[in-house]
């Protein structure tokens, strides 16, 4: 026997401790597509989620370059405010979504005067003898401050802003880097900070540090990928345009020679005009590729889609001894996609197959149901297959085996299928042929929507 449980718990067992609930809410927030600040807010709110456990107020500093800067400060400004906030947050079944919603409205409301006060506070991280709160981050230790007004290590400006007599500083660390600091106090209830509270806070500090670190790495990765893609594109455009530009320039130079014969002059002008057309074609195709935007998805009859595709390639097919067969399984009625772009994609695949086949061969365009909700469209040819050298790269832009190819066909197809919520697979063996499989959400025949 097996039992299944959900990761995203909304209600907890009575015996589940409040601390465990807090960690569960924090962990769940990492499954949501929230921003870095949103998820840090969840952690801070969890730490200040009620009068019974944790703290009253939480302050977040984040490291930016060599400075520790105040980001936000969460918590009630008065005892009345505290009561109303805690009432909301202690509602049974409250989850990360409610916490996020609550925090967002709280931070944008006028009540959020605390954050405004700490936004202007920052400390250099490289200082030789730092004051509290920076000391905790620099020394990488948790520091509990009691009798803060009389502690000489506490920065006076900070103390006047905070106003609490007792507080704890939790550094946010990852590997060898200082990423920030959380400062927690009980300014409203005036309860002393217990060891148990510090333990809870230290674990939240570890989670937050790790989370900041991961999201920084992620952002760096996205930036690097983007830079690499831009670099690749720039290199590609350079090459594609340099050849025609050099040709135009060279033949134009010849035209400047006063002794140039009339026939050569005419020929040069003709070449220049053709090369300029070529450059226009390059820019047009590049623009088309960059502008792909899939519109609203609708239920599309696969038979009609196939009809349009075979019509579009008919003249190219007529030039060769190629047989194009289409097959649609009876049970399949419609697939969910953007018909314009998916039609163009299928045309691209059939076009590629025609190029690969040479003078003769067979192309099979078929559609069948793959499972209850999914359909698969296959484009199969018995051509020479994709050379193993480029096989792993066929969906990358600017990879082509064709002399005139720009390498935008298959990346375009992939972009379209992805944008329709589907996926694409390829199976190819040298000498045996190639099959592309496009998966889309589908509807069976009996539930067909009248067109």
């Amino acid at each position, binding site marked *: 026997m097996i039992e299944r449980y959900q990761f995203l718990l909304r209600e907890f067992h009575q015996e589940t401790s409040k601390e465990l609930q807090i960690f569960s809410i924090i962990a769940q927030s990492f499954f949501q597509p929230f921003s870095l600040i949103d998820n840090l807010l969840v952690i801070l709110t969890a730490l200040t989620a009620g009068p019974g456990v944790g703290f009253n107020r939480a302050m977040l500093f984040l490291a930016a370059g060599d400075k520790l800067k105040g980001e936000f400060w969460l918590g009630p400004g008065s005892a009345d405010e505290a009561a109303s906030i805690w009432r909301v947050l202690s509602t049974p079944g409250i989850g990360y979504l409610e916490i996020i919603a609550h925090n967002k409205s709280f931070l944008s409301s006028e009540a959020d005067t605390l954050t405004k006060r700490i936004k202007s506070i920052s400390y250099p991280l490289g200082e030789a003898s730092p004051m509290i709160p920076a000391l905790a981050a620099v020394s990488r230790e948790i520091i509990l401050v009691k009798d803060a007004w009389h502690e000489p290590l506490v920065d006076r400006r900070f103390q006047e802003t905070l106003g609490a007599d007792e507080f704890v500083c939790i550094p946010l660390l990852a590997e060898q880097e200082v990423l920030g600091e959380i400062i927690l106090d009980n300014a409203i209830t005036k309860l002393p900070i217990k060891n148990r509270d510090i333990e809870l806070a230290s674990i939240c500090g570890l989670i937050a540090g790790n989370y900041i670190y991961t999201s920084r790495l992620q952002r760096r990765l996205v930036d690097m990928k983007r830079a690499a893609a831009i670099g690749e594109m720039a290199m590609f455009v350079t*090459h594609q345009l340099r*050849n025609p*530009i*050099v*040709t*135009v320039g060279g033949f134009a130079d010849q035209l400047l020679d006063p002794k140039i014969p009339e026939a050569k002059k005419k020929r040069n002008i003709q*070449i220049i005009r053709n090369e300029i057309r070529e450059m226009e074609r390059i820019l047009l195709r590049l623009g088309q590729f960059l502008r792909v935007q899939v519109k609203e998805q609708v239920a599309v009859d696969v038979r009609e889609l196939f009809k349009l595709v075979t019509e579009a390639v008919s003249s190219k097919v007529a030039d060769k001894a190629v047989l194009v067969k289409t097959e649609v399984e009876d049970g399949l009625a419609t697939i969910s996609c953007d018909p314009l772009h998916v039609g163009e994609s299928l045309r691209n695949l059939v076009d590629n197959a025609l190029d690969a086949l040479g003078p003769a061969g067979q192309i099979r365009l078929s559609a069948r149901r793959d499972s209850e909700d999914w359909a698969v469209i296959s484009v199969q040819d018995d051509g020479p297959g994709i050379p193993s050298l480029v096989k792993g790269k066929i969906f990358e832009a600017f990879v082509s085996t064709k*002399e005139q190819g720009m390498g935008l066909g298959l990346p375009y197809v992939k972009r379209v299928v992805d944008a329709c919520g589907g996926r694409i697979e390829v199976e190819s063996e040298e000498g045996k042929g190639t099959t592309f499989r496009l998966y889309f959400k589908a509807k069976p025949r009996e539930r067909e929507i009248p067109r």
Partner: protein
Amino acid sequence: MRKKILLVEDEKNLCLLYKEELKEAGYSVTAVLDAESALERIKKESFDLIITDIRMPGKNGIDLITQIMALRKDVPIIINTAYQSYKHDFMTWAADAYVVKSSSMSELKAKIKELIG
């Protein structure tokens, strides 16, 4: 006697331009559109200089250079490409010069003169 140059360039118009310009400069030019045909010609006859593009359909210019070296042909090679970045490719060091394509062919002509006069 005119010095013999083998030109490997897949762009037909560019090929025509180079051919005309180099003939004008006093060389005898044989032009081929891909690396395979270049190898066939090299095996059959001797050249004073080879000018090759890198990105071409089929075998690329770097493969071509490797194979020319394997044939132990002692012939100067100029790489003529639209890309700056191949300079970082170790095998391009085997060539005697690396010229980025330009409509003013003065740099290419200067390198040719330097290598074979």
